[in-house]
């Protein structure tokens, strides 16, 4: 394999692995902050225990998010030196701001939160977790503005043999970045909510600690319902922007080959990339695709054949990723709605089938999010910066395949180990007894066994 293919694979592996931890950090930090807020307001110890129980899971996950984020910051220079030279004038800015404005807040105040029980006043302690939650969403903002720029480059000129920033305002108001930010952070919130619902389902199924997990479930279900509806809304905006700025990605998402106005949305099909058509098409909604893409059933949608083969993204992963993401997203709206409804009616514990779906469905939002990233990133190919620079032009010139094979093997081994340990620990502490968490103790309650 070439340095290019290996570097892409490595970036995909390290970014996807990092992104297992990011959405839970986003969602769970807000839920824990909300729990602790209720404790500080009401003085009810139940909410304190909730903040500690879920906070412990949050911290395990957070630590992995931090360490797996390190390679991403440095990989641009290590493997994508040509890219870094060409666009660093712009792309470096959000990365540097992310570190200075968000990572510091997150990392400094997570230390205060985890170790500061009893060291600072209740209100200051509460402030710490809110700062962590706000900072993680802020960091998502900056990195997604960076990603949004790769998808839809704005506010730059080509000068001195590179892309230089010419308009900070345009960069900061890039609609693509904003919509990606909303779509991604909201999906992280949904994941956090479904995680809490799934873990609570485990305990509710065993009828253990019912008040504790009922209360946790109810908070998560409300939060999850609101956010999963908003994710869909942001996703709709995202589709419009893709249609406007990345027509080839839109066609790949739908495996749409021939340019048509009043383009139909085909519900079931299977791409046949070699012959530039689909193996079969089944159940088409007339004008549906035009409607989704341009909010007007009469508009013309460009087919993949409009683009030279060298400028089309790989169709199958983008097409499948999109279907999986949308299908699961709709499922999450139903699941969170049912959760909210059942919790309101006090019928949670009797809905065993529903609870089992939630428990075994914990991986689903992770799959949905990775599928979404596949659509975004593979759909952007062959460009690294859409329309400005090809991915193949961005790779480091000085690397040998052996270098990247070594690093790829290293990352895969270390990350494999970390994933195993992470799942083991999350499962262990998810099953733990919340009553055994000592009020006032640090993050390491002596007894952790279920």
């Amino acid at each position, binding site marked *: 394999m070439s340095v290019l293919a290996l570097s892409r694979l490595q970036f995909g592996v390290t970014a996807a692995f990092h992104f297992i931890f990011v959405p839970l950090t986003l969602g769970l930090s807000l839920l824990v902050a909300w729990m602790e807020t209720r404790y500080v307001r009401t003085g009810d110890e139940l909410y304190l225990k909730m903040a500690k129980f879920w906070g412990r899971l949050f911290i395990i996950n957070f630590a992995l998010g931090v360490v797996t984020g390190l390679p991403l910051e440095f990989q641009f220079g290590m493997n994508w030196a040509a890219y870094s030279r060409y666009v660093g004038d712009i792309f470096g800015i959000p990365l540097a701001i992310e570190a200075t404005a968000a990572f510091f807040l997150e990392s400094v105040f997570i*230390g205060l939160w985890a170790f500061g029980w009893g060291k600072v006043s209740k209100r200051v302690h509460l402030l710490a977790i809110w700062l962590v939650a706000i900072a993680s969403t802020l960091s998502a903002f900056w990195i997604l503005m960076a990603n949004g720029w790769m998808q839809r480059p704005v506010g730059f000129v080509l000068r001195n043999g590179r892309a230089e920033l010419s308009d900070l305002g345009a960069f900061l108001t890039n609609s693509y970045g904003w919509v990606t930010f909303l779509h991604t952070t909201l999906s992280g919130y949904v994941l956090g909510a479904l995680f809490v619902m799934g873990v609570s389902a485990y305990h509710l199924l065993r009828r253990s600690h019912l008040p504790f997990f009922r209360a946790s479930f109810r908070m998560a279900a409300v939060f999850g319902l609101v956010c999963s509806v908003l994710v869909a809304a942001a996703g709709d905006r995202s589709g419009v922007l893709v249609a406007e700025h990345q027509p080839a990605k839109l066609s790949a998402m739908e495996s749409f080959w021939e340019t048509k106005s009043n383009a139909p949305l085909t519900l079931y099909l299977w791409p046949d990339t070699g012959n530039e058509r689909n193996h079969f098409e089944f159940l088409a909604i007339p004008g549906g695709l035009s409607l989704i893409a341009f909010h007007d059933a009469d508009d013309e949608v460009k087919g993949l054949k409009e683009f030279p083969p060298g400028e089309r993204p790989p169709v199958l992963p983008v097409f499948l990723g999109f279907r999986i993401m949308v299908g699961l997203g709709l499922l999450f709206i139903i699941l969170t709605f049912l959760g909210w409804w059942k919790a309101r009616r006090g019928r949670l514990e009797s809905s065993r089938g529903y609870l089992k779906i939630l428990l075994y469905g914990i991986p689903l939002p992770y799959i949905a999010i990775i599928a979404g990233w596949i659509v975004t990133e593979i759909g952007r190919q062959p460009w690294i910066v859409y329309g400005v620079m090809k991915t193949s032009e961005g790779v480091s010139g000085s690397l040998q395949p052996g270098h990247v094979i070594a690093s790829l093997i290293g990352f895969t081994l270390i990350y494999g180990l970390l994933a195993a340990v992470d799942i083991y620990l999350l499962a262990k502490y998810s099953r733990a007894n919340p009553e055994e968490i000592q009020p006032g103790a640090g993050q390491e309650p002596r007894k952790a066994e279920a």
Partner: protein
Amino acid sequence: MFYLITWFILWGVLWAVYFMLDGFDLGVGILYPFLGKDEAKRSAIRASIGPVWDGNEVWLITAGGATFAAFPSAYATLFSELYLALLFILFGLIVRGVSLEFRNKGEAPGWKRLWDAGFFLGSLVPSFLFGVAFGNLFRGLPIDAQGFHGGLLAPLNPYALLTGVLFVTLFVTHGLLWLAMKGDAELGETALRRARPLWLITAVAVAAFLVWSALRTKLAENYLERPVWLVVPLLAVVSLALIRIWVSKGRPLQAFLSSGAMIVFTVFTGLIGLYPNLIASRLDPDYSLTIFNAASSPYTLKVMTIVAVIFVPAVIAYQAWVYRVFRGKSPGAY
């Protein structure tokens, strides 16, 4: 020109502050198996850095991000040319971070031993390799129009190995003084006692670094041209001496602050010699990456300056405040 010089200084400050802060918790990790003879001591050692190490490490991310934003070509060249060193730094820091987090979440002795080893190696390897990387920076890299010349192991030249050892001794001293300050009576006294022989080793390493840099690298040229800058290496030496004096007087806080100052002045001793280069070419100065040919556009540097002016003081303020919250002897449990 104003922005170029500002960013050269800021670039140096970010790296120096990173080494000053993460330096002590990396040093603590290296000392961990030697001073942590029993479970209580190990727990106390980990607890001493528990609330703060994560925030310290963000200075690395910020230094990396600032290098990217202000000097993209230097960021690209440095990290792709020193690929393997960077890679093992990353592996080390990953393993170290999770080791601290995972260690107490299992009961089996093998589990604890595994993550104890991870904490030690994850501290030692990055400390040494940061030294190697900066040694190569100070020495200059074999780059020209075709890029990098020299094999995989070219970065492991004798001078860089010396700076690797130098960084380890600086960090270990720094960590030892941190423990002298934070540890309970027994651990604190042990640390203070061990600081004396260790100081001697550090002094030898610092002296060797200064002499070798003066005689065998081009760092001396700037100092010969403007001798006033000699005040910086001088301050490094003064800080070094102060460490010994405060250790003798049994004042760990003052000794710790002196050792932080020594790290900053040592890093700047190299960087002042490097100016205006960011990455000096050993083959032909025409291919050196300087603040003039590697910097971002003036507009970007202006934006970044505003960002730095707003956020860096705020970061320093709240980070210092959190240090204050956790001041004094650390509780024994982690």
